[in-house]
């Protein structure tokens, strides 16, 4: 017969079982909801953030690396770097103190993509001014530190490391600034429109940015912790940046590899080549950071990934504990229902069917718990969890990116884990035979309870021990549950003390109240003149605008520095501006200048010129006449025949006569005939000609007859001249008045002048040409010539010197001549600096401060860590053997002393060598450690300054730091860092601000876990003992006495678990913290403050008190009738 489909009647038990054990299942349910909600919410937000970060390199063109130099590297150095296979982008920045406006304390979260704009063009902002936010709290919390804020300011970044605008827009005017989001919004409550002050200039915040290379705000890449409280990044307009450029500018370059598919090894090789190239070109490398090592780029994602692992592990540990709780509770149920199970088995129920039955409810509770937890986590907690990161990291606007993996990890895997462990536990429990179940032999409590106990123990003690033994599995699980919750609680409460202790210890390693790290050796002692000299040198390079404006001139001056005579000449001449200007003008007129030069070489001529130039009329005349070359030639030719000129002159004075002479010469027949008629001829032909003459002609003939002998002689002379002479005379006779006057003038000059003129007239062609030039000068040029011609000997020599320079030098001189006068003065002062000597601090300091200042040297190296693949970045100090500050570091006699922290972290052996690597130069060093000293936070290596210089191949007098009692005033140009012990506190402040929430959340998680675990596991103990409790009551025990028998052993156990598990917790916690901190630079002594132990036990006991209170009520409610009920 076919079996009638029939619903499993045991299913009907489930809701009743759930209802009857509501506390138990609710506890389990809450644990699952709690664990899954937190984990899924966290993991989803973390994985979304991870994906957002993954997108950043492409979206924001993140660099492959960066390097900075102490001083701006030469073009050749940069070209050499580029030749290694990288593209360089100038990414200069300057760091300046930032002062917040007192009114800047707005709230509001501007991160959410829904609320913000992410384009630079959008001017609007999601200003939620007026709403109180955590940022406001942070602002008030950090208010005391706002005076010590450093801002790293960039000009607009256009090709690499592009900014993302969480709100607002890019700065457009010189008085606008965009600040980092975390610093601005999260930590200081600033908003768009607020003002900040930098270098006494007010800037209005126009944008909230995130830079992809400052996801975590690390001012120093070697720092353990970022600092978003007192450090931030910002961008201003180009004009704004120019206004802020100071000596604090860092010459930073971002690089990207030309080949994007390089392996890590290939990248490293190229980077080594780059370092070599910089070194070869004398660029002083300050930092060199591959993007993979840049904490600003990699810290956030490492943290996010690490946290995901940690949360996942936490979830699994919690699920594991919960699964064991399930097993324990289910076992208790099975034991309680042993006879029923036996009966069912005897009736033909299969074990598998019973196992399934007992699995259904826990798994259903677990499934619903993880499902609801998932929904709560995804819907309700993602944003909160996002805040944990966005409160610390400057990341692009958040968006949730769904990932089924999260569901798998937080829901499916825990559920499967729970199912598997529950199944294993049940299968293990169900291995008993039906008869064993019927006989209640499936319980371990009887076996445990059957243990004999010492008779010496009092009855109550033995009773309580029995309670513990009967429920041993519960108490063992309870022990581990308490341990786990305590671990969470202690972990959350110890992270900060560990860092605080580290910073406190680190403060002790800062040997002096003030440490100055220098870029180059700077001497404190110097005369006033020396200080002024170096101050001048600094003014030259520190006034960026002036420097840049005169950069070419400064370079020229540098080039001319070795040409002392030239420089001297220049120096002397530069005071004579008139002369220099003249010289300059002449120098621009090459032709003239050459002419002048040549003429100046002809002293006779020069003298003549000089004299002539004093006779302006003559010179003008010469000038005018010299323009008529034909005339001048004529004059020249006629010069030797003055009688001709006289004759010509006399004749020209008798123009009427000369007209008739000409007429007569044209009409010889008429003149002859008339002459003959006048003499009496009557020849008809003569008469005919004579009569043909007009009266005027007759008068003309009459005039001709009156010519005197002189005229006649003149005429004869003129008739005897050749054609050229005639032409010349014609020319001369046709002169206009001015020319004639000129000629007259010249002809009438005194002898000297005439000699001079003659001299000029006798010069060769070149000289003539030169003179032509000189005589055609304009007024200015003439004045110049005058000036130059009348130089004294020295000046003339100087001018000669300057005139002899080549074109390049001339160009340099021109540049120098255009130089700012103050700058020039500074350059002159600075020129006396001995380049081989150490720089002298230009700032005066108190003599006592100088006396207490102690030189030391410092360098950074890397040493292999004992754990993990990363290298430990350490600081090597070269100190004075008898240092007044490092009093406990014995570095005399070549001893190298390692800080205890270094020894601990690297597991270096005292007496043996460690291999250290200089990442900037690629050099390796073998350093033998003779001793260890200082404290466990100290990861420095100490040696004497002389040993230091020998190790690093420095000059024997090299140093780059001062340790001193009181503050020094040092040239900032040469100062890399000013370190005070209190600076170490920034680290713990930041940790508290950024990680505090996670820590508190962890502690907050621990308490409910603790409560629920203790409640669930101890409740079962009470439940199992209900009949016994009823018996006790029947026997006449007071409730208080019953409590004493049942609650007290539980209390003792909880207390014992809290105390006894401590060493194990400490061991686990220490191991955990060592792993956590291993990846950071520095050695973190793991300390658990004693008050944390006390707090742990107190919190545990307070939580237990709540549970015990519930149990007391429970015991009170156990009915007496229970004792009377039938039970086998």
């Amino acid at each position: 017969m076919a079996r009638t489909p029939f619903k499993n009647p045991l299913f009907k038990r489930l809701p009743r079982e759930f209802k009857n054990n509501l506390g138990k299942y609710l506890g389990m349910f809450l644990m699952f909801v709690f664990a899954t909600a937190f984990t899924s919410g966290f993991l989803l937000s973390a994985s979304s953030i991870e994906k957002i970060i993954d997108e950043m390199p492409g979206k924001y063109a993140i660099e492959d690396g960066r390097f900075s130099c102490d001083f701006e590297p030469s073009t050749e150095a940069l070209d050499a770097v580029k030749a290694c296979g990288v593209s360089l982008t100038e990414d200069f920045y300057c760091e300046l103190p930032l002062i917040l406006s007192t009114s800047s304390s707005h709230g509001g979260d501007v991160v959410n993509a829904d609320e913000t704009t992410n384009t630079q063009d959008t001017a609007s902002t999601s200003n939620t001014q007026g709403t109180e936010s955590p940022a406001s709290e942070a602002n008030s919390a950090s208010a005391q530190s706002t005076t010590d804020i450093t801002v790293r300011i960039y000009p607009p970044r256009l090709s690499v490391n592009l900014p993302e605008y969480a709100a607002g827009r890019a700065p457009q005017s010189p008085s606008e600034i965009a600040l980092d989001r975390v610093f601005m919004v999260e930590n200081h409550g600033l908003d768009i429109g607020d003002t900040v002050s930098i270098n006494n200039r007010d800037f209005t915040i126009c944008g909230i940015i995130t830079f992809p290379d400052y996801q975590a705000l690390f001012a120093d890449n070697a720092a353990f912790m970022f600092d978003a409280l007192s450090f931030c990044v910002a961008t201003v307009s180009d004009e704004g940046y120019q206004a802020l450029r100071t000596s604090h500018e860092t010459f930073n370059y971002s690089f990207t590899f030309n080949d994007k598919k390089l392996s890590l090894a290939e990248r490293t090789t190229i980077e080594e080549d780059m370092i070599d190239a910089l070194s070869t070109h004398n660029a002083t490398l300050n930092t060199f950071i591959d993007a993979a090592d840049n904490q600003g780029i990699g810290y956030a994602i490492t943290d996010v990934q690490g946290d995901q692992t940690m949360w996942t592990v936490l979830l699994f540990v919690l699920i594991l504990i919960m699964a064991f709780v399930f097993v324990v509770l289910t076992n208790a149920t099975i034991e309680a229902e042993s006879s029923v199970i036996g009966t069912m088995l005897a009736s033909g129920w299969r074990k598998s069917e019973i196992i399934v039955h007992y699995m259904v409810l826990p798994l259903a509770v677990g499934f619903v718990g993880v499902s609801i937890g998932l929904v709560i986590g995804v819907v309700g907690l993602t944003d909160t969890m996002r805040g944990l990161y966005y409160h610390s990291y400057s990341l692009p606007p958040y968006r949730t990116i769904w990932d089924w993996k999260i569901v798998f990890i937080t829901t499916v895997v825990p559920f499967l884990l729970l199912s598997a462990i529950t199944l294993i536990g049940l299968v293990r429990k169900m291995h008993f035979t039906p008869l064993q179940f019927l006989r209640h032999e499936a319980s371990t409590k009887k076996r445990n309870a059957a243990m004999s106990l010492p008779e010496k123990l009092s009855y109550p003690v033995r009773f309580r021990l029995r309670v513990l033994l009967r429920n041993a599995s519960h108490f063992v699980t309870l022990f581990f549950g308490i341990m786990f919750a305590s671990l969470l609680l202690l972990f959350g409460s110890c992270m900060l003390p560990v860092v605080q202790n580290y910073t406190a210890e680190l403060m002790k390693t800062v040997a002096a109240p003030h440490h100055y790290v220098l870029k180059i050796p700077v001497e404190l002692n110097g005369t006033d003149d020396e200080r002024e000299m170096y101050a001048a040198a600094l003014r030259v390079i520190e006034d960026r605008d002036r420097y840049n404006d005169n950069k070419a001139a400064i370079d020229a001056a540098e080039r001319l520095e070795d040409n002392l005579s030239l420089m001297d000449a220049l120096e002397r001449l530069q005071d004579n501006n008139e002369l220099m200007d003249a010289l300059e003008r002449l120098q621009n007129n090459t032709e003239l200048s050459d002419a002048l030069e040549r003429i100046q070489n002809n002293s006779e001529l020069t003298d003549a010129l000089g004299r002539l130039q004093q006779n302006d009329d003559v010179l003008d005349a010469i000038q005018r006449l010299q323009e008529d070359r034909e005339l001048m030639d004529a004059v020249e030719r006629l010069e030797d025949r003055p009688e001709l000129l006289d004759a010509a002159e006399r004749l020209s004075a008798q123009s009427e006569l000369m007209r008739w002479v000409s007429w007569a010469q044209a009409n010889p027949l008429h003149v002859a005939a008339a002459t003959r008629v006048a003499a009496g001829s009557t020849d008809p032909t003569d008469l005919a000609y004579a009569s043909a003459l007009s009266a005027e002609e007759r008068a003309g003939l009459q005039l001709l007859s009156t010519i005197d002998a002189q005229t006649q002689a003149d005429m004869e002379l003129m008739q005897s001249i050749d054609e050229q002479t005639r032409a010349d005379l014609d020319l001369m006779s046709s002169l206009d008045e001015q020319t004639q006057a000129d000629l007259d003038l010249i002809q009438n000059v005194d002898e000297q002048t005439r000699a001079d003129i003659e001299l000029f007239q006798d010069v060769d062609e070149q000289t003539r040409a030169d003179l032509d030039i000189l005589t055609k000068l304009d007024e200015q040029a003439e004045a110049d010539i005058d000036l130059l011609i009348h130089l004294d000997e020295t000046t003339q020599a100087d001018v000669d010197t300057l005139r002899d320079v080549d074109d390049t030098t001339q160009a340099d001189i021109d540049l120098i001549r255009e130089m700012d006068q103050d700058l020039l003065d500074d350059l002159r002062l600075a020129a006396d600096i001995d380049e081989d000597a150490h720089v002298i601090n230009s700032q005066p300091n108190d003599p006592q401060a100088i006396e207490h200042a102690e030189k030391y040297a410092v360098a950074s190296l890397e040493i292999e860590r004992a754990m993990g693949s990363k290298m430990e970045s350490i600081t090597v100090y070269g100190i004075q053997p008898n240092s007044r500050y490092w009093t406990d570091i014995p570095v005399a006699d070549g001893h190298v002393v390692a800080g205890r922290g270094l020894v601990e972290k690297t597991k270096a052996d005292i007496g043996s060598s460690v291999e250290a690597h200089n990442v900037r130069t690629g050099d390796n060093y073998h350093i033998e450690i003779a001793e260890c000293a200082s404290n466990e936070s100290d990861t420095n290596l100490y040696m004497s300054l002389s040993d230091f210089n020998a190790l690093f191949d420095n000059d024997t007098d090299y140093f780059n730091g001062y340790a001193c009692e009181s503050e020094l005033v040092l040239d900032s140009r040469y100062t890399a860092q000013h370190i005070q012990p209190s600076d170490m506190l920034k680290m713990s402040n930041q940790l508290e601000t950024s990680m505090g929430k996670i820590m508190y959340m962890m502690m907050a998680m621990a308490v409910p876990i603790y409560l629920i675990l203790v409640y669930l596991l101890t409740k079962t103990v009470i439940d199992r003992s209900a009949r016994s409790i009823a018996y006790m009551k029947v026997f006449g025990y007071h409730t208080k006495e019953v409590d004493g028998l049942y609650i007290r052993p539980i209390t003792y156990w909880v207390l014992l678990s809290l105390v006894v598990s401590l060493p194990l917790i400490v061991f686990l916690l220490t191991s955990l913290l060592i792993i956590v901190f291993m990846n950071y630079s520095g050695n973190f002594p793991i300390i658990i403050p004693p008050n944390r132990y006390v707090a742990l036990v107190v919190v545990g006991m307070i939580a237990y008190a709540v549970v015990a209170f519930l149990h007391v009520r429970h015991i009170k409610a156990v009915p007496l009738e229970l004792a009377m009920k039938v039970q086998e």
Partner: protein
Amino acid sequence: MDNGFLRVEDLCKHYGEGEARLEVLQSITTSLNKGEICTLLGPSGSGKSTFLNLVGGLEPADSGRIFVGDTELTSLNDKDLVEYRRRELGFVFQFYNLIADLTVQENIEVCQYLSDNPLPMDDLLTSLGLWDHRKKFPHQISGGQQQRCAIGRALIKNPSLLLCDEPTGALDYNTSKEILTLMEQVNQQYGCTIVIVTHNDAIKHMAHRILRLRDGQLVEDSMNTQIARACDLEW
């Protein structure tokens, strides 16, 4: 005897070893016919419950054979034994072993679920006198009613063999008689073979067969020719 429904041949069982070794059953051989009521009598420790457990397949015998119908129990593995119990067997215990958070009817359904051919629930509840109490939970009914419920749970599968271990051990006189009467009715109504383990000598009068154990040995195996009605039993 060789054709009996329940045949036990040379059945032996011991507990413990060495000095603690206890021969609980020693070469027990007997046979019951189908539809018989059998009382298994004997003092405490005589091996009654062990005999019942062996017949019920709850524990293995040292030696000997047990046949229920055509099935030789002693040759069955654990899985087959489960199937055997599921198909052929009904158990009634002294302490009912009802599931506290199931109603009377639901407790019975626990075994109805296992059967391909269960008895009609309503008829059974009526027969057991539990109709009015079917929706009550065990703690809401008397011990006798709980035992009726346990019997109902055992019977609902319509088993061919009903094994009852001290079914009246925890009950008062009247209730015990009610339960015995009920068993008598069940035997007559459903024709199942019933083995009742009891200390109570009076119960033997309502049985067709009487077995008596003492120190693991079958000291009496007799037919009852003058069967009394359960309601007439006196003790």
